[in-house]
């Protein structure tokens, strides 16, 4: 039994913060959105809409910021290493992610016993991070399409026309909420299934010792449990 | 022998073609064709039981209220829901308002031009017109202004909706004074406002007219308040007053000039009504205008919805079977060609007990008369004496009788509607009015039988898995404009046209009169 060290270089502080903001706004948006879809109890619509409109901007600005920062902030190239490179390179699929695709799948379907070595994050995990971006933008697009101050802009009108109007767009937005919730569940599962160390790092920025890897993701010593 | 075609027959709801054979100045055969197919029943299938109310009332923009009510009733019957007293009254008031609206619109806007020549009205002497109005006991208004407006219209040549009318037609009663023509034209304009006020009652209680919003399964979503009821009552009293003091006197003033219309246009002599305006028992035969069937002489029997069947031999459907009950029938639309010897209509030949039965105000009023509904008996007896036919209700089975029955029904319904509003007000005094029964969507089958101003309407619904599985409508006009059945027996309007005098085959005025008298 062994797992990699979790060093702060893997998630520089700004990303810990952006992740927190992501999490909070998603929870706020999902709860308020769910209420807007059907107000299960009375007295909350004004607040729910206020929350939704506030956090939708927070979410979009935060995500945009996260992407921009990826080009400037350096983060660890792999877990269990303090060697860093521009974050975007570690965020997009790395060479080893591509090569190890089969190995990861085999591992998760129990056809492979030992834990694959990889680049930063497992392949599935990385896939789910990257999916966050288009999914959030889809959420934002479908959301703005039913947001009366902007819905008559040509950009949104085109989408409305495509799906035959706001009645359908509203349902698509609602549907996407479910996709997002399912996606987040998978993401949280994958991130934590092998122990809470990753969560302690991303939420509390706490380090934990463990296996050490070089910048290419090959074992380079370190403590084992 | 000549074939004469009127297509389109205007001043009706929808699209109708009337073709007749004329021999020796008289119609000897007739074919009536509904020329539009839309297939509403298929649109409703698979949707929620409540959705049928919104969609199916759009079959007809002139009687949406009746279709809407029949649809809601069919859903309620299918799911075993009963409605509270308050909802019964609200529905009666809304339906009553539509009757008022529809009958006023029919008599003045649609039918009057068959009996009143606007050009003849120009010869009227304004002072004499006032005198005549007073003598006839009908409403006076600014007859001079109406005459000027009419003159302006005729003189400048842009006739708008009067373009190509049959002015000066010999079938206009030659002895009817110009002053009476002017009175009728003035009331033609006034009626436009009065019918709109009737529609406003529906605007208040139903959200809008045509196509109202408030008849939901289990009751109504209209919540009566003092100020709304006051708006309703005020309008109904005004309309009621107008009907009694203008519309009925106009009818009685004009009718004597068209007494020949007692001699043709009668038709099959067989009548059907499902009845309309529920009393607390919700029984078809105790409705304010009760249900009934007249199949043999002037005798009423109780109506049986199981006896309705539809033939398609002369309609553009290629169904495997014909003569089926509407809830079993299918509708496979398949246009072939217009051929009076074969298929010639989108309308199916709907029959009651395999016989062509007329529906509409004449049918309802006769049934109410025979069932002993007192106010109806008083109205009819009074009119019969005025026409010099006291004690002979059978003379009403004619063109003139059909027109008169509709106008008398307007007077009856006007009183009833005012009465129901008063009942709601009384109920509110005593506390609250129940308007809705909570319920769940259940599977089952049911039907709603009701009356539109123009005749009997039935909706049949089957709910399966919470959705509409089958939906069928027998619309009022379908009864009257029915084509021939399998044995070649003519439909009610076709039959009524037989024997109609035609003075000018280019302009068969009487044919139009008879066809329009059904308010198709």
């Amino acid at each position: 039994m062994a797992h990699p060290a979790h060093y702060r270089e893997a998630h520089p502080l700004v990303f810990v913060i952006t992740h927190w903001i992501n999490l909070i706004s998603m929870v706020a948006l999902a709860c308020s959105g769910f209420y807007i879809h059907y107000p299960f109890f009375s007295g909350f619509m004004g607040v729910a809409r206020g929350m939704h409109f506030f956090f939708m901007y927070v979410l979009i600005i935060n995500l945009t910021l996260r992407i921009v920062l990826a080009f400037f902030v350096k983060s660890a190239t792999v877990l269990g290493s303090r060697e860093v490179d521009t974050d975007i390179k570690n965020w997009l699929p790395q060479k080893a992610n591509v090569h190890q695709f089969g190995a990861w799948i085999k591992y998760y379907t129990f056809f492979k016993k030992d834990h694959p070595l990889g680049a930063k994050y497992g392949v599935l995990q990385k896939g789910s991070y990257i999916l966050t971006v288009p999914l959030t933008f889809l959420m934002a697009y479908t959301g703005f399409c039913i947001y009366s101050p902007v819905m008559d802009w040509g950009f949104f009108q085109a989408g409305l026309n495509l799906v035959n109007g706001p009645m359908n767009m509203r349902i698509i937005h609602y549907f996407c909420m479910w996709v997002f919730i399912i996606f987040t569940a998978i993401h949280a599962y994958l991130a934590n299934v092998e122990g809470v160390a990753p969560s302690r790092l991303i939420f509390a920025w706490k380090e934990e010792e463990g296996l050490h890897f070089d910048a290419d993701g090959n074992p380079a010593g370190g403590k084992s449990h | 022998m000549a074939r004469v075609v009127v297509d389109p027959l205007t001043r009706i709801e929808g699209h109708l073609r009337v073709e007749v054979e004329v021999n020796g100045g008289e119609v000897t055969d007739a074919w009536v064709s509904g020329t539009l197919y839309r297939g509403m029943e298929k649109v409703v299938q698979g949707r929620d039981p409540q959705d049928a109310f919104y969609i199916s009332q759009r079959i007809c923009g002139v009687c949406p209220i009746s279709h809407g009510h029949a649809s809601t009733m069919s859903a309620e019957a299918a799911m075993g829901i009963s409605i509270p007293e308050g909802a019964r009254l609200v529905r009666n008031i809304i339906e009553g308002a539509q009757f008022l609206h529809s009958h006023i619109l029919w008599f003045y806007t649609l039918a009057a031009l068959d009996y009143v020549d606007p050009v003849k009205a120009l010869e009227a002497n304004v002072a004499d017109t006032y005198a005549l109005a007073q003598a006839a006991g009908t409403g006076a208004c600014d007859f001079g202004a109406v005459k000027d407006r009419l003159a302006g219209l005729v003189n400048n040549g842009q006739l708008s909706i009067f373009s190509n009318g049959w002015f000066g037609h010999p079938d206009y009663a030659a002895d009817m004074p110009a002053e009476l023509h002017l009175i009728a034209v003035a009331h033609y304009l006034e009626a436009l406002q009065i019918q709109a006020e009737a529609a406003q009652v529906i605007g208040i209680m139903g959200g809008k007219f045509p196509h109202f919003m408030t008849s939901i399964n289990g009751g109504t979503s209209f919540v009566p308040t003092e100020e709304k009821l006051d708006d309703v009552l005020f309008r109904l009293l005004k309309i009621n007053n107008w009907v009694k003091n203008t519309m009925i006197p106009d009818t009685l003033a004009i009718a004597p000039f068209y007494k020949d219309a007692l001699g043709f246009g009668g038709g099959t002599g067989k009548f059907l009504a499902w009845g309309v305006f529920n009393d607390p028992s919700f029984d078809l035969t105790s409705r304010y205008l009760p249900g009934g069937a007249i199949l043999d002489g002037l005798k009423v029997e109780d109506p049986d919805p199981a006896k309705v069947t539809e033939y398609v031999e002369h309609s553009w459907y290629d169904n495997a079977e014909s003569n089926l009950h509407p809830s079993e029938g299918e509708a496979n639309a398949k246009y072939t060609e217009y051929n009076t010897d074969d298929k010639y209509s989108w309308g199916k030949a709907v029959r009651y007990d395999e016989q062509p039965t007329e529906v509409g105000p004449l049918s309802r009023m006769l049934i109410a008369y025979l069932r002993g509904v007192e106010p109806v008996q008083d109205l009819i007896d009074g009119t019969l004496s005025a026409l010099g036919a006291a004690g002979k209700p059978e003379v009403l089975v004619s063109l003139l009788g059909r027109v008169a029955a509709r106008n008398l029904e307007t007077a009856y319904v006007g009183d009833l509607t005012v009465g129901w509003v008063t009942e709601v007000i009384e109920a509110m005094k005593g506390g609250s009015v129940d308007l809705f029964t909570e319920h769940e969507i259940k599977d089952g089958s049911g039907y709603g039988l009701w009356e539109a101003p123009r005749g009997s309407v039935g909706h049949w619904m089957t709910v399966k898995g919470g959705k509409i599985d089958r939906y069928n409508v027998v619309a009022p006009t379908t009864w009257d404009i029915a084509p021939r059945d399998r044995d070649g027996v003519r439909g009610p309007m076709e039959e009524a046209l037989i024997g109609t005098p035609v003075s000018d085959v280019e302009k068969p005025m009487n044919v139009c009169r008879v066809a329009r008298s059904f308010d198709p």
Partner: protein
Amino acid sequence: MAHEDHGAVYDLLKSRGVSRRDFLKYCGSLAAMLGLSEAMVPQMVAAVESGTKLQPALWLNGGSCSGCTESIAQVDTPDVASIVLDLLSINYFETIMMAQGDDAEKAAEETIKEGGYILIYEGSVMTGQDGNALVINGRKSTEILAEAAAGAAAVLAVGSCAVDGGWVAAAPNPAGAIGVQEFLTDEGISTPVINLPTCPVNPEWIVAMVVDVLLLGKLADGSILDELDDFGRPKLIYGQSIHDNCPRRGHFENGEFVYQFGSEEEKKGYCLYPLGCKGPQTFTNCPIVRWNSRSGWCIEAGSPCIGCGSANPTKHGGNWVDVGTPFLNRHRDLPLGGLGNTAPGTVAGVVGGVAGAALVAHGVGMKVAGRMDGGADYEPMKAHDAKKMKKGGGE
């Protein structure tokens, strides 16, 4: 042409028994109705007085229920008599015209020959049964429309049916109903179309268009077309949602809702949102102009809006029935073109349930495999590199 050259429209009105005082009052009420300032009245008067003759028009019924005709008969400022006698010369109007049969058709023919008319079309365009779903006077209604539209100055498609087929075009669209705009595009007819959806059309909007054309000269200078949105609807009328202008909006924001007909909340006039009100997604000014001479409108009478003004003239499937049913529900299915309907809640529930179950099962597997705490032991070298080595590759 007997009526070529007569004086100003005002003279015409005068000759029709309308006094100058009445006329000014009438212009004033029109201005108020349009939300124009009283200061516009002299300008409107001038516009009318310089006119030459009544604007000719044709009102054709396609696959209609005559409800839009009924609707225009309810208008009171001006009333329908003024519209058909003093403002427009509607030479063909099936439901109320005096003439019938061939004589009626002749009135239409003559108007088409003269040109310069406005075509008002009510009802859907019936293309089903090869155009035989509606035949008038021996001609397919589609043929009649094509001819009348080609010669018109503009087409007013009144009511949702004329805009995109309306309920008649709702799945499975048994009679092949489509909207006027689509039909004209298919036929290559370029006459501009102004779309006025709702079922039926609200008569105030027809009057607004008549006023735009007659009093403000907006058709002559083309400006009427600049004021249309992407769906050919006048922005002034269709620019805001029912929800934006609904008198119950305060209750919506307060979260005061009617959850059940017959409830105390219903009596208090709370917001109908949970009962499926389509006001937030429906764009018309119903709450402002209201219906039946302002006597009421849907939500005031206690009914949720069913979105009868939703229409998409550029595309199939946007008719108000297909996008709005089930009318009294907030939840609804998502139509997937020809593939039927999906219920997002159900699909999400099923997919979510499956995903959740899979995660749990997987988690159990991970536990059993002993991978839960810290994961399995790491492979000594990447599987990819190992494979390469076996093949004799590698550096």
